[in-house]
């Protein structure tokens, strides 16, 4: 049941990315090109997604339990720190260069785009390196948290 729900979510999420054309890097670069010819489409994608997701999260957090009766496993609210901002800055630079973020890249690669497949392989390597770095730099307790902690989204 849980696997079926997760499968459907992934499927709908992917179809949403395709319909909104976020799997096309040119659309994403067009949105980020604020100082050139700006394509505001991505703002509507995020806006539309936010309205629906906000209702869903508000409802489930008020309920305190899922519709299947399980406890929620949402990331805990923590303060803003340098790791969050530094990581997000690196992500933004990579996003601006390639025009891919993780979800759309996976979907575009699944649509048999060779460019997207190259990006996804490099991205997985980057994720793996980040995990290795975290376990090397942090204390044993911190390493476990960095690798699979509840804060990881």
């Amino acid at each position, binding site marked *: 049941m849980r696997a079926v729900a997760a499968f459907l979510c992934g499927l709908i999420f*992917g179809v949403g990315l395709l319909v909104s054309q976020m799997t096309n890097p040119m659309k994403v670069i067009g949105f980020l090109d604020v100082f050139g010819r700006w394509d505001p489409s991505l703002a509507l994608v995020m806006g539309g997604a936010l309205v629906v997701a906000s209702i869903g999260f508000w409802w489930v957090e008020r309920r305190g339990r899922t519709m299947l009766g399980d406890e929620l496993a949402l990331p805990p609210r923590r303060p803003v720190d340098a790791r969050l901002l530094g990581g997000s800055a690196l992500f933004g630079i990579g996003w601006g260069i390639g025009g891919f973020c993780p979800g759309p890249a996976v979907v575009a690669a699944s649509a048999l785009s060779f460019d997207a497949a190259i990006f996804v392989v490099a991205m997985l390597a980057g994720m793996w390196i980040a995990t290795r770095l975290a376990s090397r730099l942090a204390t044993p307790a911190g390493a476990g948290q960095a690798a699979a902690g509840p804060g990881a989204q």
Partner: protein
Amino acid sequence: MTIDWPAFTPGSALTGGLLIGFAAAFLALTLGRVAGISGILGSLLVSARGASADRGWRIAFLVGLVLAPAVATLAAVPLPPVQTLVDWPWLVLAGLLVGLGTRIGSGCTSGHGVCGLARGSLRSLAATLTFMAFGVGTVWLFEHALRVSP
């Protein structure tokens, strides 16, 4: 700033956005989880030890994501083109940065930009503003200052 009206696709953007939001809401309501793609991918790269309960739904979600183009084709939803603006060495660099950055920063456009913002998370707001700003700055650098790409 000039708006690129011919490129602007408000209808498909809003429709796709609503689908993405619905998927995120549905995952929260059924599994109590955040639909963060970088977290789902990154966690699967880590050893299964101690996280086997979460492995199942993450793999199921990814299978759905990967099958989306095939299902869209069957449902006669036209697939958009995938037009990259840089050569593959740049794509490799971009991929490494996105992989590193999303794991260090605990999220990407889906985890922070959709789910985190939808929950009113201050961390996700800070993360989203940061990656948006650096994305805009990078595109300005590449498209206008350096003119690396066409």
